[in-house]
Every structure is written in structure tokens, then in C-alpha cells.
């Protein structure tokens, strides 16, 4: 739906309107954002196919003599599945084209990251993007693409097919950037990404010729997520309304050969038949039409279009009360409304369709963890008949449905199978390798949901050892992406700062690292630039509980450590002073041999 709205404006306009949000506000930040978009696409692609990622990032200055901000060539190679030839121009040449809209955890979610970066490169340097993709490891397709900014269409400058050495994708853009300022952030990003992706090998060759390489610590991947439906808890009215609309859209889909079925059912020679012919035949044959043919028949008549044009029409809504149907006319490129004719035979059919599914099947089919029995019991709880058609719910009833979905306590907890947390062991091993701490503890909370989206929080706390920082250093991750900018307004920092650390025996500038990872099918980012997470109460709660759990572990470690330290200090003091006391009293007492105090010192050192 959003796509249709954005299609009304040109991509360049879109870019300019949204460049701040998307993270392309200046040469420093743009370079960093472009790196992220491509690296994250590579990792996403590998994750989804269960491929252990190897990602190589290269940034070179076009003219090494020039001064920042200057022109850079940014290239990212991966060993992922690649993109099928026919999708390459669309994936890299149009805004909001993506394959990740389903309810499944991935780094990318808006379908515009890569294109924004490419657009930024093109606007600042007027150079095309180079994409080279191999899906089979045998041949690769290399494209040079410019974006037609007026038409939101890719312009293919070059396309060649050649032999490939391995499967995977590489993208290369030319863009204006400022590495002298963005460098430390980019290196941080690569470092932190490696921490949260311990199964990936990531290398970065920077413009100064330095290489940063992080080899994989794990040889196995966390299980890949699956696509699933939302959980009934916390789904708000707007989401339900949207889901009802979507369920109806499926019922009134104009695609999937609908036009062909109609042509066949009406006994037409081809799809060019005019509306008059269609309307007449539909009226004659309506009773005999198969259920599969009735839908295109009803739509073509209602929209007064020929079967051939039917696939270009997208139905938005059928309003039975008003007798109107609203739709997007792809030929005219505009939204339209048509009046329904109550006398036509299709009317009662469309009315029926508009009424939608029965509540019970809507619940079982569109939500996770809801079976027919649960749906029935819920309907009773919410005071609806299970067979009630969802399309006929008025606004008050929708609110009641939504409130009841939240309030009903018998739903099973959300299915986290669509989530891809790293898992406690990989997180522990990553943190152990990166920080070499004296103390380390990790926890993964059980799955929870906000606004119908499941999420899982996992986190780790590390203390002392190789950690040199003074005070708490937080590493924030969401869907395996490190969040580096805008930390001030982030929910994680809020939770960390709210903690009374003294209660957990963490005093002063303790060398402490906290890594948090929020996994969700939809992270509630505050901006498109994916830098900070908004504070939803459900997420805040999970973070707080997780952190408290870890802090308690740390606290008992600290008191053990404190006791051991005190004992050691005591032992040291005794070892320093008692021999002196012994020496002095021996002379005072006029004795030759010193008293036998050694056993006493040993005992004290042990007892603490």
C-alpha cells in the first residue's frame, strides 16, 4: 500500500524529501549509510539461504590526491545466492522494491536501502551502479545501471554475461563521501557487525590501504527464520483493519489468470472484447458460471472494463453501505471509484465477498497460534458469533475485537520461529572472543510481542579482563545490525541508565560491556536510517528484565570477586607486616630464633 502512495512522486523527489530520514544527509553520514545498506543486504541474502557469509568491503578514493569530501568507489562482494537476472534491474533500480516484506526477521525491511544508496551516488557523481550477480556459480550477469529519475525506471547501460568463479553478488557505486570523518564509524560498524555475526567472515579494505579482517568464530549458522502470521496480542485496530482489507483483497484479486478464466467462461475469442459484450454475456450466463469465474465476471462488470485490462486494476475496497468500489486504475495511473448497480446479478455476489471471511476462519488463517477451538472460545469471550463475517464489523465492533484480542489471556505465547536471535552460545562466544572478559553472562528472554509483532531480546554483560573502558559501554544491535548513531534517544540506553547499578555492586567507572540484541519481524525504529529503537513498553520491559537478570549474575560475581580481593589484600598485608613484627619482638624478647608464624599467614590467606 505504501508503495502505491510513493509511486505518485518521482524517486529523486522522494530521495530529497527523505534523505535525512534514510541517512544520506551529508558526505560523512552518506558514506557510512551506503556501506551499511550493501553489507546488510549481503548478510540478509546469505542468512536467508543458510550460507555462511563471506563479505568483502572495499572503499577506494577515485583520486587519492583529492581532499575530503571527495569521490569514492564503494564495492561490496558476497558469496550469497545472488539475484536472478530478471530481478536485478528492479531490485537495484527502483525504490521500494524488495523481497523482505513478509513477517520474518531480516535486516532490511523497507525495500529502499540499496536504491537510496545508488541514487545518492548517481546524484552526487553522475556515475552508474555496477552489479554483478551469479546465482549458480557458473555464469554471472554484469549490469551497468542508471536510474531514470523522472520515470522511476532503471536504465540499463550495459549488460554482459560471462563465466563466474563463484556464486554471489557484488555491487559497486561511485559516490561523494568523507572518509576522514566517517572512517572511525565505519570501522566500528564492521567491528560490531562481526561481533553480532560471529558466523561471518567480514573484511574491510579502507582507502588508506589498511585491511580489517574478522574471521568467523562459529562454523555453524543459527537456524534460519520462517515466515509466519502475527500474534493476536497487541494487534491494534489499524492493523486489524488492514488485515481485513488484505483478506478481502485476496478474495478480489485481479491477478492469477483471472482474465483468462473470464475469457474462457464467457466463450469469448480473446480479451479484447468490449464492456458491452462482457456485460451482456455475464448477465446471461451468471447462474452457470463457476465460482472461480464469478469473481472476474463481477469485477469486470462493476469496473466496466475489458478482460484484458482487468490485471491492471487493483481493488482497494468494496463499500456495501455506499454501493461503491474503489480501485487503482493502472492504465490511467490513478485511484478511481465506481458505483455498484444493485440490479445487476453480480451485486449480491460482491456483497457476499465484501462481507469477508467468518471471524473464526479469519482468526485461524491470519494469526499464529490460533486453532478453531481457540478461535471459538475467543469469539465467545469477545461476544461475537464465530460465523460473523469480518467485513461487516462496524468501527465500534472493530475496536471491541481489537481490545478483546489484547485482553484474552488464553492465547499461546507468540511463535518465535520467525525470529532469528543469535542464540546464547554464539553470543557468548562472540563476546568472549571480542572482549576476553573476566566475567561474562548472556541471556535470551522468551519471545514476546508488541503491536502484533513478535520480538525476542537477547543480551550479554561482560566485565573486566580485556575491557579497558571506564564506565559502561553499550553495544546495541537490532536484527543483527549494530546501531551506532543517535544513541541518546534509544530505549536500550534509557533502560541501562535507569538501572541502579550501585545495587548490583557496580561502582564508579567499572569496565563493563553490555550487548543487547533485539530481534523482531519489525523493529520499531524511530527513523528509516535504522539507528535507534523507539521505546515500546513491551520491549522496554523485556530489556529491563533481561538486564536485571544479568546484573544479578554480575552482582554475585562482584561480591565473590570482592571477597577474594579483600582476602588477597589481607594476606598481602599480613605477609608484609607480620615478619617485621616477628623480627622486632625477637630482639625485644632477647631471643635468637624467630617465632613460628608461617602457618598463621597461610591460614589467613586461605580463609579470607
Amino acid at each position, binding site marked *: 500500500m505504501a508503495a502505491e502512495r510513493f509511486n505518485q512522486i518521482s524517486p529523486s523527489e522522494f530521495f530529497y524529501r527523505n534523505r535525512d530520514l534514510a541517512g544520506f544527509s551529508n558526505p560523512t553520514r552518506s558514506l557510512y549509510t551506503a556501506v551499511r545498506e550493501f553489507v546488510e543486504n549481503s548478510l540478509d541474502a546469505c542468512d536467508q539461504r543458510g550460507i555462511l557469509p563471506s563479505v568483502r568491503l572495499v572503499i577506494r578514493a577515485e583520486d587519492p590526491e583529492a581532499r575530503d569530501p571527495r569521490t569514492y568507489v564503494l564495492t561490496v562482494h558476497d558469496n550469497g545466492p545472488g539475484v536472478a537476472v530478471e530481478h536485478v534491474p528492479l531490485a537495484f533500480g527502483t525504490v521500494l522494491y524488495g523481497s523482505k516484506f513478509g513477517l520474518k526477521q531480516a535486516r532490511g525491511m523497507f525495500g529502499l536501502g540499496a536504491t537510496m544508496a545508488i541514487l545518492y551516488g548517481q546524484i552526487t557523481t553522475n556515475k552508474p551502479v555496477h552489479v554483478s550477480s551469479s546465482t549458480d556459480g557458473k555464469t554471472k550477469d554484469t549490469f551497468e545501471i542508471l536510474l531514470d529519475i523522472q520515470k522511476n525506471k532503471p536504465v540499463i547501460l550495459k549488460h554482459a554475461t560471462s563465466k563466474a568463479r563463484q556464486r554471489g553478488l557484488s555491487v559497486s557505486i561511485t559516490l561523494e563521501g568523507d572518509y576522514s570523518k566517517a572512517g572511525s564509524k565505519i570501522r566500528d560498524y564492521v567491528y560490531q557487525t562481526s561481533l553480532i555475526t560471529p558466523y561471518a567472515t567480514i573484511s574491510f579494505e579502507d582507502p588508506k590501504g589498511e585491511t580489517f579482517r574478522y574471521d568467523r568464530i562459529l562454523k555453524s549458522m543459527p537456524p534460519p527464520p520462517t515466515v509466519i502470521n502475527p500474534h493476536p496480542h497487541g494487534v491494534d485496530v489499524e492493523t486489524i483493519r488492514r488485515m481485513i482489507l488484505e483478506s478481502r483483497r485476496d478474495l478480489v484479486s485481479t491477478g492469477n489468470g483471472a482474465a483468462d478464466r473470464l475469457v474462457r467462461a464467457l466463450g469469448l475469442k480473446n480479451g479484447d472484447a468490449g464492456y458491452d459484450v462482457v456485460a451482456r454475456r455475464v448477465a446471461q450466463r451468471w447462474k452457470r458460471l463457476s465460482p472461480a469465474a464469478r469473481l472476474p465476471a463481477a469485477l469486470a462488470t462493476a469496473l466496466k472494463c475489458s478482460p484484458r485490462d482487468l490485471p491492471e486494476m487493483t481493488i482497494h475496497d468494496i463499500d456495501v453501505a455506499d454501493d461503491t468500489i474503489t480501485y487503482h486504475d493502472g492504465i490511467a495511473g490513478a485511484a478511481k471509484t465506481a458505483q455498484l448497480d444493485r440490479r445487476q446479478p453480480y451485486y449480491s455476489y460482491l456483497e457476499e465477498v465484501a462481507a469477508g471471511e467468518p471471524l473464526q476462519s479469519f482468526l485461524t488463517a491470519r494469526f499464529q497460534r490460533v486453532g478453531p477451538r481457540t478461535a471459538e472460545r475467543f469469539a465467545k469471550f469477545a461476544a461475537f458469533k464465530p460465523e460473523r463475517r469480518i467485513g461487516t464489523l462496524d468501527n465500534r465492533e472493530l475496536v471491541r475485537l481489537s481490545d478483546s484480542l489484547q485482553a484474552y489471556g488464553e492465547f499461546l505465547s507468540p511463535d518465535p520461529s520467525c525470529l532469528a536471535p543469535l542464540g546464547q552460545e554464539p553470543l557468548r562466544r562472540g563476546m568472549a572472543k571480542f572482549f576476553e572478559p573476566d566475567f561474562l553472562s548472556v541471556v535470551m528472554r522468551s519471545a514476546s510481542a508488541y503491536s502484533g509483532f513478535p520480538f525476542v531480546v537477547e543480551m550479554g554483560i561482560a566485565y573486566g579482563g580485556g575491557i579497558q573502558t571506564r564506565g559502561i559501554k553499550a553495544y546495541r544491535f537490532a536484527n543483527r545490525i549494530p546501531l551506532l548513531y543517535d544513541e541518546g534517544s534509544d530505549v536500550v540506553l534509557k533502560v541501562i541508565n535507569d538501572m541502579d547499578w550501585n545495587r548490583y555492586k557496580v561502582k564508579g567507572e567499572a569496565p563493563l560491556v553490555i550487548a543487547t540484541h533485539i530481534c523482531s519481524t519489525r523493529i520499531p525504529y524511530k527513523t528509516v536510517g535504522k539507528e535507534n529503537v523507539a521505546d515500546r513498553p513491551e520491549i522496554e520491559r523485556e530489556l529491563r528484565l533481561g538486564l536485571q537478570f544479568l546484573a544479578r549474575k554480575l552482582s554475585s560475581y562482584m561480591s565473590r570477586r570482592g571477597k577474594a580481593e579483600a582476602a588477597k*589484600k589481607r594476606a598481602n*598485608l599480613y605477609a608484609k607486616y607480620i615478619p617485621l*613484627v616477628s623480627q*622486632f*619482638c625477637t*630482639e*625485644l624478647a*632477647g631471643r635468637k630464633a624467630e617465632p613460628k*608464624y608461617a602457618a*598463621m599467614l597461610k591460614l589467613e590467606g586461605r580463609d579470607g
Partner: protein
Amino acid sequence: MAKKAKSRASKTQKDVLDLLRKHGSRIYDDLDHGRFPNFEIPSRSVGNIVYDTKLRQYVLGKSAALRSSKNTSQLRSFTQLMWLAFFANRLTQEKKSSTLRDVYYSSQAFAIDFDDQSESDNIIVDLEAVLAKPREAMHIFPEERSSVFGDLDIEYTVPGYEGKRMNLSNHPDGYAIGPSLTSAELVGTSAELVIAVEKGGLFTRFVEEQVDKKFKSIIVDTGGQAPRSTRTLLKRLHDELSLPVIILTDGDVYGEHIAMVIKSGSANAAHLRELTVPDAKWVGVWASDIERYDLPTIPMTDSDIKRCHDLQKDPRYSHGIWKKELEVFLKIKRKAELEAFSKYGLTNITDRYLPQKIELARSL
């Protein structure tokens, strides 16, 4: 007489050495049996300082603090105290004297770290309290010096001078009251009186005017508040040679207190009992002398007045001349120095005032 005196000095030394050995053996035994040793240190806090009317001085009450080598926050100061006992033992055995500052520096040779001299000074007071012996008995002396002059024969006991004799009227500037004089035996004297004066200037005048001969006296300059070695000497002159002691100070509240400290000690030294001369007499300058002798005066300051009020709370000032003179000071709010007598001629004080006061002291 000489013989008797000699045995006294060596007895002090033996007492100290015995005490030290006793503590050393106790601690040795503790360690040998795997016990952490302690010192019991009489508390010197205000609450534990009481005035003993029989002894006529301040003494420490019964409360004492335990300094334990097991307690890590006390271990360091325990060791310091232990070291000091060890060091005092060496000093006493070898009859070597040292100053407070020497002690502070000597500690460094034994890896005993004192933060500063005030820390080591405190430990010295701790040891005094534990042994109930003044530091001078352990051959540790302060830097301050005061002087003595008069017909007094002494015999040194310090190494290198043992047996050597000396008469303290041979040098007109007087003799510094240092370690060797304090530890010397008092052999004999023709004097019948000890006059302690607060000021070096008067001391010189008295020597010039031959007060020692005219009044058969030994003259001691206390140099303001009398140092402990001076008080020890005064006590010994009184106790061993049976000489009465009179004290002449400025006519102000501070002078009155200088006399009181010689007589009955200070709260600071409540843990020691060999520093007082309870029979010593303060003969002037009294507040009441100011009018009687028509002395030139200066007004009392606020702090003088405050000091008067403070002393009024001290039990020793609750009777007799001590009480009366404080009241007069507060009434006239003026004070006079010893030198004020010079208004009537430089020798007025020795010619007129001193004889009257000596006469008065005899009658007291």
C-alpha cells in the same frame, strides 16, 4: 648522696628495658602459638582524661583501646608501635639519644613507613601510654631547649662522658637542658631554691644580677611553656635534692597556666606521672600584683578573655590563688609582662620584687 643518685638513673633505664622485654616476650609467645598479638593502649580521648585530686594532676581513666595485628586497618600502626619499642630498646641499651625527627627518619631503614612526622610522634605517645614512661626515659627528646644555671654538680651518664662531672655555674649563658643533662646524675648543690622563669631575657638578667648567689638558687629558663625535659629536671631537683621550686611568669592568663603545667601537668601528658612538681609555687606576676606594684599594662585581648573562661572550667582553677587571680584578670582586663618592672629601673625586679616573692613563698 652521689651514690644514691646514680642508682636512680640506672634504675629508670632498667625499668624501661624490663618493660620492653616483657612486651616483646608476650608478643613473641603469641606469634609462636599462631595468635595475632595485641597492644592495649590507654585511651587518651577527652572522655578518659580525669583529674586525680590525690596526685594533683590529670591522669588517664580506665578505658583502653585494643590495637590488634589481626585487624588489617590497625596492622600497620601495630607494626609501627612494635618497631618503636624495638628502636627504643636499642636506644636505651646503647644509651644513645635521638630526637622526634630522628625517630621519623630512622623508621625508614626498617621499611616502616610513617606518612609524616606527626604520625611517628603519635606512635611515640602511644608507646609512652603503653609503658607509662615518658619518651625521655626511652632516650627520645624533643628539639626545644631551655636552660639552667646555678651551683649544681652533675655527673654525665651518656656514653663517652660517663663519670665526667660538671658544675652548672661555670658558664654565664647557662646550660642547655638536653638529653645528656636530663640523664645526668645530680651529684650535689649548695642551692636552697629553684627559680623557674618564663623568659630568656629575665634568665639572663638574673644571672647578671647573681640571683643564684644572692638567693642561693638554681635558675631555670622554661622558654615559655616548659618542655618535658625541663619539667623532668625540675621534678628531679625537687625530689632528689629536696629543693623548693618557685615560678615567675608574665602577668597574664598564659603565664598562670605555664605555672600550672609545671605544677600539675597538662592534659596532653595525662598518661605520664613523672613530669609534675605538685609542690611548686607560682609567685607572680599575679593579676593583683599589677595594681600593688603599679605596673604598666596592656589590655587583654578577646582570646585572653576566652582563655580565662576556659580555664575556669578546669577543676584545678576552682580554688585558692588560681581561682582568685583569674577573677582579678577578668575584672581589670589588663595584663603586664615581667619586663614591666623595668619602668622602675632594670634591677627593680631582682632588688625589690623577687625578695618579697621568695619571702612570700616561704610562708605559703
